[in-house]
């Protein structure tokens, strides 16, 4: 049965997670909640478990900082966590900028911006890996964490928890950029944190898998996917999405009317593939 819940269940869950986390972080600062303190750069869960942004820690290493044990453990915890649930699950389930860019993509489609600019995108999705390398080079040369001083992600998240100042301008810039300059511009092309999690996600366990025998080639999944280059196998062969650039947002699963896409564990998916 096709219900509203069925076609939006993951989207709703993602929004609940994203906004819920923001509320928890905000409550920690405003009312002293102890479930999860800090912010997305580094958190303390239940007052015991540290969890830190591994990309920020990588920049610290590049900058030549002497690292304390807590931050290393924190980075390790986050790395393991996203290794399990999918590298870029951070992007679609946690990152507050995702709310902005998803909205920009929605408006872009709504006002017909995509028809104006056509299919040809003026930038490569590989850009983010260049930015990633560049951030580490600048960190090493300047001796500061280069991306952390311009990151709209931490700027906005910190802003929501601790006071935003002019940080709303960063949100507006990204919104307008995604709306008028480049489709899926920030998250899909530029963001080095997304690039970092893409590399990490190559190895992660939870995957979207395509079942070719169910596919009717409606291509709804490719239309809705923010990283649709990862869905190259649609209608061709039954394969799991192996690219780390997939954000595990599961929009493709919920728009599919034919049960041709589902979540699976990586090793099982690969075994299935080999069995055929």
């Amino acid at each position, binding site marked *: 049965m096709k219900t509203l819940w069925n076609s939006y269940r993951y989207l709703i869950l993602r929004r609940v997670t994203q906004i819920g986390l923001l509320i928890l972080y905000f409550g920690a600062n405003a009312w002293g909640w102890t479930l999860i303190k800090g912010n997305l750069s580094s958190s303390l869960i239940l007052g015991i478990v540290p969890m830190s942004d591994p990309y920020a820690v990588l920049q610290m290493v590049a900058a030549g900082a002497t*690292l304390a044990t807590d931050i290393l453990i924190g980075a390790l915890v986050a790395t393991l966590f996203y290794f399990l649930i999918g590298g870029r699950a951070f992007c679609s389930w946690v990152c507050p900028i995702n709310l902005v860019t998803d909205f920009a993509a929605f408006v872009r489609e709504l006002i017909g911006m995509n028809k104006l600019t056509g299919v040809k995108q003026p930038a490569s999705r590989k850009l983010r890996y260049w930015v990633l390398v560049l951030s580490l080079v600048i960190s090493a040369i300047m001796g500061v964490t280069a991306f952390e001083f311009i990151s709209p992600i931490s700027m906005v998240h910190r802003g929501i928890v601790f006071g935003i100042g002019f940080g709303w301008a960063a949100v507006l810039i990204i919104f307008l950029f995604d709306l008028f300059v480049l489709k899926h511009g920030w998250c899909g092309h530029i963001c080095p944190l997304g690039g970092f999690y893409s590399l990490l996600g190559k190895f992660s366990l939870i995957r979207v898998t395509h079942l070719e025998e169910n596919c009717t080639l409606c291509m709804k999944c490719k239309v809705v996917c923010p990283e649709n280059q990862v869905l190259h196998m649609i209608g061709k062969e039954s394969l799991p999405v192996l690219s780390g650039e997939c954000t595990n947002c599961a929009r493709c699963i919920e728009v599919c009317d034919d049960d041709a896409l589902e979540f699976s564990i990586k090793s099982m998916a690969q075994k299935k593939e080999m069995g055929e």
Partner: protein
Amino acid sequence: MKKQALTDRRKFILNMARGVGLATIGGFVWSAFIDEATASQLTLRPPGAIKEEDFLKTCIKCGLCVEACPYDTLMLASPGENKPLGTPFFVPRETPCYMCPDIPCVPVCPTGALDESSVTTKEVLDINSADMGLAVIDHDSCIAFWGIQCDACYRACPILGEAISIEYQKNERTGKHAFMKPVVHADACTGCGMCEHACVTEKAAIQILPRALAQGKAGDYYIKGWDKEDEKRLVNAHEIKSTTEISKQKPTDKLNGDLLEDLYE
């Protein structure tokens, strides 16, 4: 000229060249921004903060110190405040550091940007050993220096009598009153800013500045010969010999030689 399709090899080289070119543009713009954004010298850090240069690379901007502060003294720099973005700071005129004996902001730091050992004396946390800045008095606007009796900063100081003392001096203008001038002692001052917060003038006449900004440095050439501690700096001292064209000659050659003759000619 004949139009030719690019070979794969050429395409690859051109694409790489474009990537490197764009990365260079981006890299310089990015670096310039970072350089400006981290240049603020007037930022007062939480207790136990390591050297500013190291602090900027070590602080992960998580705000756990801010959340631990019971007085809401600490804030994270947001865009528009002209401070290194996301790093913790405080403005003593608004809310000073109240010097909690258990220093809750320091042990929570995951990265060691706030260094517990720097505020620990004999294995016990000791806020009096904190060094957030140094109180500096503007003699022109401090009304105690005018001869009006005010000891607000002296009374507000949490290490009363040590970081700020009152110096008495005869007021020659009236002939019968005394100046009671506050004097800051740099070795004891923690830079908590309770003095600045308490100061009664419109804009505080006593203000906390980061030590790097407030203090000078005598350098290796000057040693307090009467101070046993300072004399120790001589232990590792070594001679520096510098030779220039002039110093190859004897001083007397220069003094009484050609110059004098030149004069008489």
